């Protein structure tokens, strides 16, 4: 009986598979040893655009911050401002006219020299482009060129935090005659763009004549791993020198890994649960206080987030200027008995007569949020308050948030500039975003005052007062401040982590 054809085909397939497996094992590919010093960064962030006037997401900011320089920078590893393209700056006593003195001899990648009129052109271009971050420039009335290296900003109203605003990417000068900056960026920064395969990787080359001296690595490759599990595997196998976006669950194992190390820093982002005070019964302060006492914060921090976040007691994160350490004393802690007592005082003994609250979240934007929400749901159920979790994709969530179509929500807040003003005004002043319908005239008035004073000591006193009032009104459940952490191979030196998540690859080197 001739060998039936089916067996032959099956045989061929088996042989082909064997060949593939053999090549896979025998020829263990030698990792490429290119002559130049290459540094590979793995990240879960996928950059969208490289035009500083359009950038408003972390992913794009990470790349753009290494191609462009903004006017003002930070002292390494801190939130203190430091000179960058502007050597120094000053303002008039009303803090509404700011003058910046530019560094001399700074060149763009295409050779043009940085001058004041280029800064003026860049700001006006950004204003005219009306990209997502353009609202940050609303405070600027007009830009004046004082002389070749001095530029003056006349503001519409007194604004003390203006220099910290000038650290934002939108303040990065761009060459006047350049076109298609979204894809072919030309900046003054330490790296130049060589190639951008969207969704796959960004390849940057060292800018040899950078004004702070050439960066230590010749080529910087930023590879995109949408899934943190894959990023962790790449890190463990040494395919990636530094990883941004490792998930909290993997930290314990990675710390045990001998040839890896972690750098971490207190963050500035705050995560909270907001309550809609426009709706019955959440306008009842006692009820909100009861909810605050019912949450087991330690379980969330230690078991769910595995120590990757520190507790938030009030409206401001600990790392920002003006934070009041006493808030940790008068802030809310897990106390279910007190919660039950307050709930009864509020008129709902054991939750009797309370309707079910709808808590909207978006876990697509931050995966751990789903677990935290489940713990909160369980905690509130134990004192008699039932909560229904609704997980939405990010824009649907935002749409309901801005239409105030929720009982409770969970979200985090990323500061545009490191100043208490960028937390208090938008989140608690009734003339700010006013997400929760929280209205306290004293808070409104103090917030406005603090914004106009230039004397830091005065401002700190006002913000301390504000924190006490807000915590007492309990508009929110103050949850946590995620720590920033970055993993890298043992032989990576020079990387400095900034609280404002400013990622600088300039000093990085592989020993």
């Amino acid at each position, binding site marked *: 009986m001739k060998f039936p054809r089916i067996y032959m085909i099956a045989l061929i397939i088996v042989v082909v598979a064997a060949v593939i497996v053999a090549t896979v094992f025998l020829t263990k590919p030698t990792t490429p040893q290119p002559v130049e010093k290459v540094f590979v960064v793995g990240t879960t962030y996928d950059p969208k655009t490289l035009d500083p006037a359009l950038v408003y997401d972390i992913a794009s900011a990470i790349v753009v911050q290494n191609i462009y320089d903004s006017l003002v920078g930070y002292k390494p590893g801190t939130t203190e401002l430091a000179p960058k393209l502007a050597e120094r700056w000053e303002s008039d006593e009303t803090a509404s006219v700011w003058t910046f003195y530019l560094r001399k001899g700074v060149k763009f990648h295409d050779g043009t020299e940085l001058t004041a009129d280029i800064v003026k052109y860049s700001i006006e271009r950004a204003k005219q482009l009306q990209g997502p971050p353009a609202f940050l420039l609303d405070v600027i009335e007009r830009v004046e060129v004082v002389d070749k290296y001095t530029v003056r900003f006349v503001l519409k109203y007194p604004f003390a935090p203006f220099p910290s605003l000038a650290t934002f990417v939108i303040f990065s000068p761009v060459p006047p005659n350049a076109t298609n900056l979204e894809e072919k960026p030309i900046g003054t920064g330490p790296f130049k763009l060589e190639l951008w395969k969207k969704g796959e990787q960004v390849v940057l080359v060292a800018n040899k004549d950078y004004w702070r001296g050439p960066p230590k690595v010749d080529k910087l490759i930023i590879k995109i791993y949408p899934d943190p599990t894959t990023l962790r595997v790449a890190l463990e196998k040494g395919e990636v020198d530094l990883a941004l976006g490792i998930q909290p669950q993997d930290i314990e194992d990675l710390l045990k890994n001998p040839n890896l190390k972690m750098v971490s820093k207190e963050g500035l982002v705050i995560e909270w649960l907001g309550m809609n005070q426009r709706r019955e019964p959440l306008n009842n302060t006692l009820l909100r206080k009861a909810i605050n006492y019912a949450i087991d914060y330690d379980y969330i921090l230690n078991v769910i987030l595995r120590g990757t976040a520190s507790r938030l007691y009030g409206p401001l994160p600990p790392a920002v200027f003006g934070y009041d350490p006493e808030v940790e004393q008068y802030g809310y802690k897990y106390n279910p008995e007190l919660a039950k007592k307050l709930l009864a005082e509020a008129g709902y003994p054991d939750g009797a007569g309370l309707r079910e609250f709808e808590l909207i979240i978006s876990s*697509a934007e931050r995966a751990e949020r789903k677990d935290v929400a489940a713990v909160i749901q369980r905690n509130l159920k134990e004192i008699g308050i039932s909560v229904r979790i609704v997980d939405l994709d990010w824009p649907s969530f935002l749409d309901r948030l801005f239409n105030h179509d929720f009982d409770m929500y969970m979200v985090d807040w990323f500061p545009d500039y490191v100043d208490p003003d960028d937390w208090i005004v938008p989140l608690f002043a009734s003339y700010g975003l006013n997400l929760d319908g929280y209205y306290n005239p004293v808070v409104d008035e103090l917030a406005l005052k603090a914004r106009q004073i230039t004397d830091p000591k005065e401002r700190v006193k006002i913000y301390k007062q504000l924190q006490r009032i807000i915590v007492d009104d309990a508009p929110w459940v103050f949850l946590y401040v995620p720590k920033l952490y970055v993993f890298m191979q043992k032989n990576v030196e020079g990387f400095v982590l900034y609280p404002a998540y400013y990622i600088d690859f300039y000093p990085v080197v592989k020993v």
Partner: protein
Amino acid sequence: MSSVKSRFFRELLGIKRIRYGVIILISLAILSFFVIVFSPFEHDQISYNVHLPPLSRSNTTWPYILGTDNLGRDVFTRTFYAFILDVSCGLAIITLSGLIGLVIGLVSGYLGGLVDSVLMRIMDIVISIPGFMLAIAIAAVLGSSIINAVIAVAVVTIPVYARLVRGMVLSVKESLFVLAAREAGLSGLRIITKHILPHITPIFITQATMELSNAIIYIAALSFIGLGAQEPTPEWGLMISTARRYIREAWWPAVFPGLLMFLTILSFNLIGDGLRDYLDPKKRLSTGGVG
């Protein structure tokens, strides 16, 4: 009358495949019933008041047979709670999309011409729209819950049935007995129900049981982006997409729901296969169809 019925069921169970399938399915159903009634844990009970760390798998503590998930909830209990929910979702989807797809397939296959091309082009459109986009739109209109996920998945899988049925109707349409029926002046509807339908039912049922697994997996995919079941509902998709993040540390919260899902779908497929053989006119219980 009873003898015929009992013979029918005896015949049905006589087929090896159906027997295996039914045994697995019934044992799973009974097990989940017992778990729901007797499990010491509510499906969403977080273990911290029992002081057992999540993601632990200690077989010393009896109640946690399969260990706990990332919130310390008992995986064993939740996996079997999810059995009821997912099987009903899966069945709802295949019935919904199956019936609509069957009707579209029959009508367009049998009538052909303009009707056929219009219906098929509509199917092309439905297929080319990304399923999860439809799910978000439905969730936006009706609010995101498991029911909308079922509707979204059903709508997206209609073309699968429509195109398959149409293909089969086309090849059956030409065969002798259909032509004979048409010559005998039977109405289109009677021809479809009496002649074409029984002929294509076997393959259709097989496809439906196969689509059941796709349905459950699609619900899981929607949970992956938070549009399927919501916390704390125990649903395989939600459990697996959450547990996936802990897979390196604890594989069981992800693998066991996957395993139970496989067993359920295997049982449906064995039953579907057995039914296909049973319902096939040629292989009916007589001597294999030969006089």
